[in-house]
């Protein structure tokens, strides 16, 4: 489902934000690790710019305040699950208030590679309380559209193996040791992430896209849908 103006907050309003001023569009691409989100974001950006829209693209842990701290924390071996969730939430809030909202005020199309949903899904996959993290993240703006690139965990495994060729510590949820090795832990952890995202799909009005289609097919599907927002 696509949302028309005006933008709203899920539950908590951010101080100093007049929603009426937010003239831009907020578009979210969600999905688990290695599902092909960044490829689509890059193509969409080019396409939107060709159409004459100014585009801001942003994504998890890229903020000026906490981005660096998160990467440093992930290099150590002491980052607990709640601490990690809140560190990411800090980064998200920083980007929302200091990048996304100003860009929307200026009439940009904000294209975000993941939003609160991955943050919540990762927390839930690590056993944290669903209602707790939903409420923590409830200061987020309701996007105009949320595209959920959905794949089964076996598709993700083949993408990882054929792509990067190795499993990543955090993408495998190795901080929680879900399995005996990186592969087993990846399968278990990513299944839990997918399950958590699936459960959000209806509540948050995701547009679900089958990520096993070719990148071109997915791109055309996204183009058709995003075209209706303008």
């Amino acid at each position, binding site marked *: 489902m696509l*949302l028309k103006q005006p933008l*709203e907050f*899920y*539950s*908590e309003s*951010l*101080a*100093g934000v007049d929603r009426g001023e937010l003239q831009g569009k907020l578009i979210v691409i969600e999905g688990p690790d290695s599902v092909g989100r960044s490829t689509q974001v890059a193509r969409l950006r080019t396409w939107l710019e060709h159409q004459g829209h100014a585009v801001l693209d942003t994504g998890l842990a890229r903020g*000026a*305040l*906490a981005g*660096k*701290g998160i990467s*440093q*924390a992930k290099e*150590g071996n*002491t*980052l*607990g*699950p*709640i*601490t990690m*969730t*809140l*560190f990411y*939430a*800090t980064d998200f*809030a*920083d980007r929302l*208030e*200091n990048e996304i909202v100003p860009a929307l005020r200026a009439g940009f199309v904000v294209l975000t590679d993941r939003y609160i949903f991955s943050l919540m899904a990762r927390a839930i996959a690590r056993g*944290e*309380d669903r*209602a*707790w993290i*939903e*409420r*923590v993240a*409830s*200061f987020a703006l*309701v996007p105009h559209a949320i595209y959920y690139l959905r794949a089964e965990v076996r598709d993700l495994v083949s993408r990882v193996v054929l792509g990067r060729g190795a499993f990543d510590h955090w993408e495998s949820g190795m901080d929680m040791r879900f399995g005996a090795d990186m592969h087993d832990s990846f399968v278990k952890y990513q299944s839990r992430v997918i399950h958590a995202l699936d459960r959000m799909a209806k*509540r948050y*009005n995701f547009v679900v896209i089958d990520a096993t289609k070719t990148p071109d097919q997915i791109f055309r599907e996204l183009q058709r849908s995003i075209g209706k927002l303008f």
Partner: protein
Amino acid sequence: MFIRLPHMPLLVPNRHRGKLIVVEGIDGSGKSTQLSLLSQWLRAQCIAVAFSEWNSSPLVRETTKRGKKKNMFTPVTFSLIHATDFADRLERYIVPLVKAGAVVCADRYAYTAFARDVVRGVSRRWVRNLYRFALRPNLAFYFRVPLEVAIGRILGGRNAIKFYEAGMDMGLSRNVEESFRIFQGRILDEYEAMIQEIGFHVIDATGSIEEQQQQMRDIVMRELGESLRDGILRASRGDLDAAQAAPRIL
């Protein structure tokens, strides 16, 4: 689209052997002095005591410093980074030690955020939910002090009030001292309003240091006496000497 969320219980009950004692109050209320005296008293009884201070996680330090130096914080990010700091200390330090049977003494706890972050502009409900993962203290002391007394102590003791400490980010006044006064006054009001909700043990912080300490010890004995005799991790004299040498503040 408004997402409806159910009412949530506050903090996680402590079902472990160890205990958690926290002190709260505005700057200049004397709570740190009192907690330090209390922990010495507990240690003298060979009780394993650990200490945790607000805003002291090494994992988060650089980020907090960056944010403060460049004035990057908003009420929400200020609140979230302090919660991150708290979570790190809780996950890595406080909970494992309480599980092990220690008495953990915390100088400021989630209630500091309940007071301070609300004054900065986040909602009471949101910040209470934010800290829901926290272990509920066995004892929470609130050092009640009139604003003027606290301000007198602060201005007498230290020479510079820091930007965020004075709430200068809120634009209350251009004068640091005036801003500090307004900001701390509002924090005081928040503390006063949550006494019942939290079940604070209120200590009159205008009394002498000795009187206050005696009250604290009486309350600890009355509320925890039984479990301090049995369940708690105790050191032999030799352990205690060895432990004195090790760093114990986080």
